[in-house]
């Protein structure tokens, strides 16, 4: 038997109180059953907020003293280390790069190649004897300080801790820092 689909207002003979309770319950229970699955997903969505940098800041062996020119010219080196990517542990994967240069017979300065402005990879220009960021034309002196006055970079190139081991190995505490801010804040 078909019933025609009448379009009318609610049956006026139902007592108002019962109608209200029914509506409130229906809305309430409906809300609960919808919120619960969504709430279960929220944890997964927000999970990255509670993750610190799994790779930490450890000293990583980069190269030897001999590989660095005595005249203090910066040389770029890849940083290769064990890396954790969510569930995968990569043994010896590339994680970044540094510029190393001699500042004395046994002292080295290490600079992270990443520009503190927006994260581009900074180049070294041998002709100009300084670093150049190709994205917004910042130039940095060899020690990392900003050279051009209209540079948008909020701070100099980030220097990294260096340790010389066994009198010849160059180890660097490789870290990345937050872009676009004055302070040098390690990414955690």
């Amino acid at each position, binding site marked *: *038997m078909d*019933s025609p689909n*009448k379009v009318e207002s609610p049956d006026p003979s139902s007592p108002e109180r019962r109608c209200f309770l029914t509506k409130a319950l229906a809305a309430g*229970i*409906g809300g609960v059953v919808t919120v619960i699955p969504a709430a*279960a997903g929220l944890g*997964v969505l927000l*999970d990255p907020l509670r993750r610190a940098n799994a790779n930490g800041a450890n000293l990583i062996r980069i190269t030897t003293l001999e590989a660095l020119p005595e005249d203090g010219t910066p040389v770029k080196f890849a940083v290769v280390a064990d890396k954790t990517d969510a*569930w995968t542990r990569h043994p010896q994967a590339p994680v970044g790069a540094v510029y190393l240069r001699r500042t004395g017979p046994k002292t080295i300065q290490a600079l992270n190649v990443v520009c503190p402005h927006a994260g581009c990879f900074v180049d070294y220009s041998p002709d100009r004897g300084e670093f150049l960021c190709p994205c917004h034309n910042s130039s940095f002196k060899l020690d990392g300080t900003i050279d051009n006055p209209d540079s948008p970079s909020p701070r100099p190139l980030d220097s990294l801790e260096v340790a010389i081991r066994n009198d010849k190995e160059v180890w660097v505490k490789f870290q990345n820092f937050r872009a676009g801010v004055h302070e040098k804040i390690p990414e955690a």
Partner: protein
Amino acid sequence: MKWLLDWLDHRTGYRQLIHEALYEHIPGGARWRYVWGSTLTFTFTVQIITGLFLWLAYNPSSQTAWESVYYIQYQMWGGWLLRGIHHYTAQAMNILLVLHLLQVVIDGAYKAPREINFWFGLGLLGLVMGLSLTGYLLPWDQKGYWATKVATNIMGVTPVIGPALQKIVVGGVDYGHHTLSRFFALHAGVLPAAVVALIAAHIYLFRKHGITARRPYRKPDARFWPDQVLMDCVACLAVLAAVLFFVVRRRLFDEAGPLGAELGPPADPSEPFPARPEWYFLFLFQFLKYQNVFSALPGSPEVWGAIVAPGVVTAILFLQPVIARRRWGHAFNVTFLWCVLAAVAALTILAIQQDRNDADYQAAVRKIERDAGRVRKLAQSPSGIPPTGAVTLLRNDPLTQGPALFAKNCAGCHRYGGHDALGRKPKDAPSAADLKGFATREWLTGFFDPKQIAEPHYYGATKFKEGKMVRFVQRDVAKYGDTEKLALTNAIIALSAEAGLKARREPDARDAAAIVEGRKAITDTLGCLDCHTFHNKDEDATAPDLTGYGSREWLMGIIADAAHARFYGKRNDRMPRFGVDGALTDREIGLLADWLRGEWYEADGVKAAGHKP
């Protein structure tokens, strides 16, 4: 405020839409039997919500699928809850589909003019079954992998288009990356979109023709909102409560019980697992066991059983609106449906019972439970999951592989604690030593016991039973006085220390003095070097070298080539030369050696692995 709503309504007509949606007329009032359609819409929405959140973390490739699901389950905030809801809601949907179909057929809501809506509903049934099938593969665990292999092989049996269809679905000949990405595209894209489209059409047609109210009317007429909506919401709450119960079920009565849906060990094409579909397809699995009833017919029995028979049942279901035109049509339809459901239930129960009584199947289930626990421990270890994926964790784990390798290659002659290392008794009598606790002080003490050395546990079943070592122990050692007994004890300590067993590191460190005495006993007082070598060179040695006895290198050497001059040489009894003849790879020999020595990963706080006598 009201002017804003009036403005909005004038431009969109939303009030009319809401009115249409909420004020459907229900003759005879709201009833519980009408809730199933809404519960299905609800569960589908739950799947979309939970599925979207899972999509944020899931990675479909044969090297990252299992791993990403493991990560969601064990490493992400509430991941177990999210995945658990998704898993058990899928199961619930299969039950709700049957209930909805039953109600629709019994109440005659499939008859004219509602035929097309009924067919859309059957289409939705098929699509949801497809969602179940594609979803089951995505964790890429052993159960999902082998179950899907069977399902796609059945697909391949379809006449004419079968093999091509299988290749398209699988993404090639082998099951791998492309199988996952195709199944995932189906599961998260194509099928849900089709379901949404069909649900929209289904609800539109349902509203167009109005509800088929069940007579006799029990209550005054009502509207969808709020009376039926309340009943629908209560039903949805009950479904959600049931789902949540299953999610936490195993933790409810056992503090250490797992939470959420289970995750088997990673898919391993080289590690067979008796394939089973999920429980809601078990009836088809069971039915195919009887496919030989079709052997009288031309063509393959599997085509008849897997494609034609289900096809006929489906065709009759589709034809039900037409059949109902007859006077007896509706009665036939209802009876037919009950019979089909009864058969499905019976087949399902039979399948479960047969599996329960199948010792081999139960052993396989226990093995994957063990492997699942083990791989989880290995994944949580400091070395984590390598880029090659979690399956390599188990393949390189001595604790997992050792017993299987031993049972297959060694248990023909040796024993391990009286059995084949997998708990089974080999059919032939032992013809070589029992290697449980090999190179421990306890094992060596038994070896030097005159009453034990000629037993099958040591040399009793080998030709060395008549040899010089046995004679030495039975004649000379039997007559040892106290000083000589002490020397022998120290010698045993020193010999066992050569192995450097992980579980004996502390005692070996403590007894450093005894080890020094023991070495002297071996080289000087006890006469071992008359036949053996021990940290010395002797070309006339007639017995195995004891340098590094029981160490990884020594064990690998003797397994690889027991007939080498360093070991038994020409006196080798019957031990095959596993490495030399290529029967075992270096990797396998290494796994055996590690397992025999108790060298496998255990988390800190767990007692160091070792063989207790």
